[in-house]
């Protein structure tokens, strides 16, 4: 199956909109199925505010690296309080109040505009650690990496961005990115510059509502999309009707079963309960390869 990738590594992001639909369950099962087919992928847990893929993939996290952003420091004695720094900061992380300059590190994205634009050159930068990257081998030969945002830090984006640069796939190795829930900046950061977006949903009004938002994001980014319906059997036909109307391919249904929830709660994978799904996940991967190949 790797032949059809022509040596390039296919990057598949798994997202959902609604939280708790089974993103990590699906992403881990896809990774394990690829490993079983002799093509163990690189797995990136991009849900840096609450990473949990390690509970299923059991990595041995030996490599670590801090993630820091550069926070401005103003030499107040030399500052003329012209206000240029505050004017250029689109996050309002630096304020000039009369003869005082204040920096608000939790608002700072570390972009460096204030330092760049300061006409007096009195702004320097100091690194502020906001999280950590960890990597190591996981179950079935999967290469695993994740970011962890420090508690109390509000900005997931820089950690996710750094994780995607830091953890590199080998030539021809597929990459699976487990995105955070929602449709805001951390999700966009996770799924941008990927080749395909697998959206996991559940057949409920809430699942449908957030699926629509996630599909809008994918269109904004120009990403091809496939749908996985998890907990099939609950709710109503709303998701199926929507997918049909919008021409969104439903690649897989996972039944609503207590046994699956019990296994997941014990740190086992969906495939441990339903080994027969392995070939289904491999087929999903081939459909994704075809879909991406057809666009190229």
């Amino acid at each position, binding site marked *: 199956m790797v032949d059809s990738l022509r040596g390039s590594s296919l990057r598949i992001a798994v997202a959902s909109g609604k939280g708790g639909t089974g993103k990590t369950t699906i992403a881990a099962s896809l990774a394990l199925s690829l490993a079983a087919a002799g093509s163990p992928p690189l797995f990136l847990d991009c849900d840096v505010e609450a990473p949990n893929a390690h509970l299923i993939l059991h990595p041995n996290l030996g490599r670590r690296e801090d993630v820091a952003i550069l926070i401005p420091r103003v030499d107040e004695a030399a500052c003329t309080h012209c206000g240029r720094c*505050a004017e250029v*900061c689109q*996050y*309002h992380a630096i*304020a000039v*109040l009369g003869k*005082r300059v*204040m920096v*608000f590190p939790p*608002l700072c994205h570390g972009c460096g505009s204030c330092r760049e634009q300061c006409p007096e050159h009195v702004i320097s930068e100091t690194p502020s650690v906001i999280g950590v990257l960890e990597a190591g081998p996981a179950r079935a030969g999967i290469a695993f990496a994740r970011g962890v945002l420090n508690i109390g830090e509000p900005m997931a984006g820089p950690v996710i961005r750094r994780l995607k640069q830091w953890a590199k796939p080998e030539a021809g190795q597929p990459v699976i990115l487990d995105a955070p829930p929602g449709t805001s900046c951390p999700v966009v950061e996770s799924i941008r510059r990927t080749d395909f977006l697998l959206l996991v949903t559940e057949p409920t009004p809430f699942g449908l509502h957030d699926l629509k938002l996630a599909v809008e994001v994918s269109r904004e980014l120009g990403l091809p999309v496939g749908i996985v319906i998890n907990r099939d059997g609950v709710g109503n036909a709303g998701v199926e009707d929507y997918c049909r109307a919008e021409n969104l391919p439903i690649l897989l249904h996972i039944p609503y079963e207590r046994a699956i929830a019990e296994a997941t709660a014990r740190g086992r994978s969906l495939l441990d309960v339903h080994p027969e799904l392995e070939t289904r996940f491999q087929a999903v991967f081939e459909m994704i390869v075809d879909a991406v190949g057809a666009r190229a």
Partner: protein
Amino acid sequence: MTIIVTTSGPELDSPVDPRFGRAAYFLVVDPVSSDYKAHPNPALDAAGGAGTQAAQFASSQGVEAVVSGAFGPNAFQALEAAGIVMSLLGPAWLTRSGALRCALP
């Protein structure tokens, strides 16, 4: 002397807006003459940093005090650094339209 009162509309009769950084309007008021000017809050829809932006606006207007229903942690720090007095209005006044008018001479 001038003060800023956060309001949900551009008039003296508009109810006081309960939030400082996310208020709809900043009313710069002279409490002696009752002269006032309404400024729409430029940070109303900002993704973040509305409080620091609002505090800078207050500082740039040279007001001595701000009146609102709540001040966030960033706005509080910034206003304090700017030496601007913060006054909190209780809930009974926040919901009452004309509260500001009846406080002025």
